[in-house]
């Protein structure tokens, strides 16, 4: 046992090793990179599900209910709950676990809270690495909870195979969703707190926005094309995914089964249309590109003396040199 690597311990089911590795991953340490490289070949099996939406809409409560549901299907569930850090102190209060207490005592569940600025490698990159660890460790479902507000969250959503956007009645409905630009990333919409007044209005608003965002079936069929073209259109149509809207009450579990079914259906849709592989490939591509950028910049700085670089900055500052010329010269000089 003593001579196992951290990655091997994680693969053997050691939960403490898993927790430690997640800490390394957050700190983007050399240990983390070595372990990730070791674990990579074991990844690629988990269904990554993003849960995002405005503060207080019931994301954590829904994650709790969904996890209970997936556990009934004997799937192992990991949860990454991301909360914002204080921009002033860098500290954070991470409170999502409060709503997930039903999951404690179950070895098939692992919950990890993360502060958005606690990560050194960029939030999306760190989250991706965290999900990779869980994936390799054999968790079949990995849920990622984020507060849907900014670019960070959109980037995290891109990481997921299926993104659930959680709305709740009485949030100023339509404006809320459009503002966050968040509807575009939704694969499934949950209207949580469906026990509250105003659900009808929220659903109506969402439906009309969805129709704008996803011109669908109607358009294809209204063109009155010949039979064959119609069949083709219909075939194409089946490749279209229109985000279903699910009403839920996360406090008592109502509607959660339907939501879980919609999530599973989306995964099946992605697999049958090739969308799964497409997403996977795109994700890996952007990951490699991010790493490449980072490595090239690091190498560049290693090869260039700090003084030279500072003198270039000084010249730019004095407006003797433009940033564009500077970069062109710097890069070309390196190649020469």
């Amino acid at each position, binding site marked *: 046992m003593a001579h196992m690597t951290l990655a091997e311990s994680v693969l053997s089911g050691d939960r403490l090793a898993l927790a430690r590795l997640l800490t390394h991953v957050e700190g*983007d340490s050399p240990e983390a990179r070595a372990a990730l490289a070791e674990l990579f070949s074991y990844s690629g099996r988990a269904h990554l599900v993003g849960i995002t939406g405005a503060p207080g809409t019931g994301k954590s409560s829904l994650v709790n209910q969904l996890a209970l549901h997936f556990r009934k299907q004997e799937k192992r569930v990991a949860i990454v709950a991301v909360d914002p850090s204080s921009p002033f*102190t860098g*500290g954070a209060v991470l409170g999502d676990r409060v709503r997930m207490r039903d999951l404690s005592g179950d070895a098939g569940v692992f919950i990890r809270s993360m502060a958005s600025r606690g990560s*050194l490698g960029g939030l999306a990159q760190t989250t991706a690495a965290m999900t990779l660890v869980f994936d390799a460790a054999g968790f079949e479902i990995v849920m990622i909870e984020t507060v849907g507000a900014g670019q960070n969250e959109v980037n995290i959503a891109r990481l997921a195979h299926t993104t659930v956007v959680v709305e709740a009645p009485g949030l100023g409905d339509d404006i809320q969703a459009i503002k966050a630009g968040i509807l575009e990333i939704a694969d499934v919409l949950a209207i949580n707190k469906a026990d509250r007044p105003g659900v009808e209005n929220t659903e109506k608003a969402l439906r009309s926005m969805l129709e704008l965002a996803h011109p669908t079936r109607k358009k294809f069929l209204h063109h009155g094309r010949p039979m064959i073209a119609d069949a083709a259109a219909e075939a194409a149509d089946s490749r279209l995914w229109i985000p279903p809207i699910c009403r839920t009450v996360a406090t008592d579990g109502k509607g959660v089964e339907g939501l879980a079914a919609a999530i599973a259906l989306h995964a099946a849709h992605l697999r049958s249309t090739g969308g799964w592989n497409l997403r996977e490939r795109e994700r890996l591509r952007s990951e490699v590109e991010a790493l490449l950028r980072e490595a090239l910049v690091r190498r560049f700085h290693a090869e260039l003396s700090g003084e030279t670089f500072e003198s270039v900055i000084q010249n730019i500052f004095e407006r003797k040199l433009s940033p564009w010329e500077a970069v062109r010269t710097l890069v070309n000089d390196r190649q020469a």
Partner: protein
Amino acid sequence: MTERKIRVLVAKPGLDGHDRGAKVVARALRDAGMEVIYTGLRQTPEMIAEAALQEDVDVVGLSILSGAHMALAPRVLELLKANGQGQVRVFVGGIVPDEDVPRLREMGVSGIYGPGASTEDIIREIRDAIQ
């Protein structure tokens, strides 16, 4: 690379029903730059140890107003140790009679704070304890 953030689990074991004090401390620790995982009311020692493990925390802060500290604190310490987290520092806040303080310390509790304790003291002692 910046120094790794101090991660603290703040938990409220026992059956007494309010967590105002725990929340005040949680926010103070956040303002001191720490990452606080807040778990809410009525946590059993088992739930606390499990969360401490998953979150890989450096510190566990227990808020105990019920008077059950002599049962709860050692149980948490024991479970942490059993999980391989013997290095995690445990602090207790709440109403602890003077005569219990040395006994808790002996059991391995790193700091004990009454209702009047200043958050500055708590923050400093947490920082010192995990150096």
